[in-house]
């Protein structure tokens, strides 16, 4: 279009150059900040999901040797003698709910098999089932906390 000014092109006045750079930077920053805000917007701050810490009634509600499945929490409460443990029922493979089987647990989705200790016996699950902390609350109720992972041999002993 304008072919008469090829020489002036390289001689932009210094102030003009700074203002131009600043302007572009400011504009780019505004766009980047909006994009970052949009992504952050999509990350929820409050969840309407069941609490990860909850009471599970009196210890004597669970007979000796029982494995009790709690639906809403998706855990098994395991009692042996005076010991209590809490096992996650969520398959570590892809999140299906495992079923209690004769000598352990069975995942229906892709066939992972876990033993009584929650360790993988066969199937695609990369890790054993999680164990969660069990404590006794002040009012003598079992208190399960799914935030606290523990080793398979940690018991609450009464």
């Amino acid at each position: 279009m304008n072919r008469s000014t090829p020489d002036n092109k390289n001689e932009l006045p210094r102030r003009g150059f700074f203002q131009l750079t600043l302007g572009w930077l400011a504009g780019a920053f505004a766009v980047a900040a909006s994009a970052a805000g949009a992504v952050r917007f999509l990350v929820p701050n409050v969840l309407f999901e069941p609490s990860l810490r909850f009471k599970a009634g009196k210890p004597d509600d669970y007979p000796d040797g029982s494995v009790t499945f709690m639906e809403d929490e998706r855990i098994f409460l395991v009692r042996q003698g005076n010991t209590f443990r809490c096992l996650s029922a969520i398959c570590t493979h892809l999140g299906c709910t495992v079923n209690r089987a004769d000598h352990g647990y069975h995942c229906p989705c892709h066939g992972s098999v876990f033993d009584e200790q929650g360790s993988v016996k066969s199937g695609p699950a990369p890790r054993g089932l999680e164990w969660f902390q069990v404590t006794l609350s002040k009012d003598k109720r079992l208190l399960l906390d799914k935030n606290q992972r523990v080793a398979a041999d940690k018991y609450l002993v009464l």
Partner: protein
Amino acid sequence: MNAPLPKRIWQWFTRTRIGRSIFRIGLPESNLERSQVMVSSFLLHMQPAKVHRHSLRASYSLGLGLISLYLFLILIGTGVLLMFYYVPSTEKAYDIMKDLQYVVSAGLVIRNMHRWAAHLMVLFVLLHMCRVFYTGAYKRPREFNWVIGVGLFLLTLGLSFTGYLLPWDQLAFWAITVGTNIAGYAPVIGLKLKYLMLGGNVVGQEALTRFYALHVIVLPTVALLMLAVHLWRVRKDGGLSRPDEPGDIVQQIQLKQLPTNKTYGLMELARGTTPQVGKNPEDEVFAWPHLVFRELLLFLLVTAMVLFLAIFWNAPLEELANPIHPPNPAKAPWYFLGLQELVSYSAFWGGVVVPGLLVTALVLLPYIDRQRKGVGHWFARERVVANTIFSVCLVIAVVLTIIGTSFRGPNWGWVEPWKNAPAVTEGH
């Protein structure tokens, strides 16, 4: 001249003031009008006035791209209808599905059409991709249109997957649980991505809301825009690919090679990066009626096929979603069953590495395989290596899908479909 009655009525109408104001050109009678009608109508101007004979050959394209397009249009139509009833709420969604089946007039058929068209679209997009591969149609200058095609393929899968959750039945709930957990295996960002997709840690109301927004507005809009570019490029690349003819030079003039000290008209510029095509006018025919009526006929056939399926087969609806009891076995939609079979060996390799590599290979393909021989023929001898590699991958994918679909029973154990499946034993 004794034209059939509808034609005479149409001719009369397009000669009235009102008809003329709408259609400008009536039914074209001369070659001039045949060109004019193509450029003067909004819908028709997306297509060229003349097309190469080779592009019309049904045995070349098999119309697979067009069929995908029509299925997409049917999905938009039926989907919008479903939106008039559907509410993305974990409490209501399932009941509304039941209402659609038993209460709403034609609700069953509309829902069936939407479901079958969705399955068919995945199938036909895949077939279309195979056609493009086996005819070498992704080669220069169509490389980038292939890449856009890969994007459309992924969008098609995304649309199906997000739609799958909406009925909120067992199938929906567990397919999405499994699918989003696969995403969780992606390195570094996996768990964050899963959290973002679900809007939480588990599949619940937040996930349903998000999937709904993606399914009805985000993905369809992106797909429509990409589709517009896809079709525009088919035209700008000189219509469908075809064998090079003697004297038919594929010429790519770079715009920057043109002298810059003169002003160009649009015609001169537009030719810049497109191949010179159809040098021989003998090989071209008018789009009206040759192309337009074929397209219309195909559209009618596709609609009829979907309607037929929808009338005789019902879309599945299992029990209400139950987060406690996964159905045994819990299966993803069929097009993901090959993936699920892989995932049953290893979630990381099957769910992340293999699909990641496949998509990368698809995107890079036209830039890796740059030989220009064998374009425009099915199974060209010059392309035997490429075709063999592609076929092997295809066969593996099909076999895995068939295994996942028919040979997997309770606990993802091996069953032979011709024998009775063993009874499901539930643990608790």
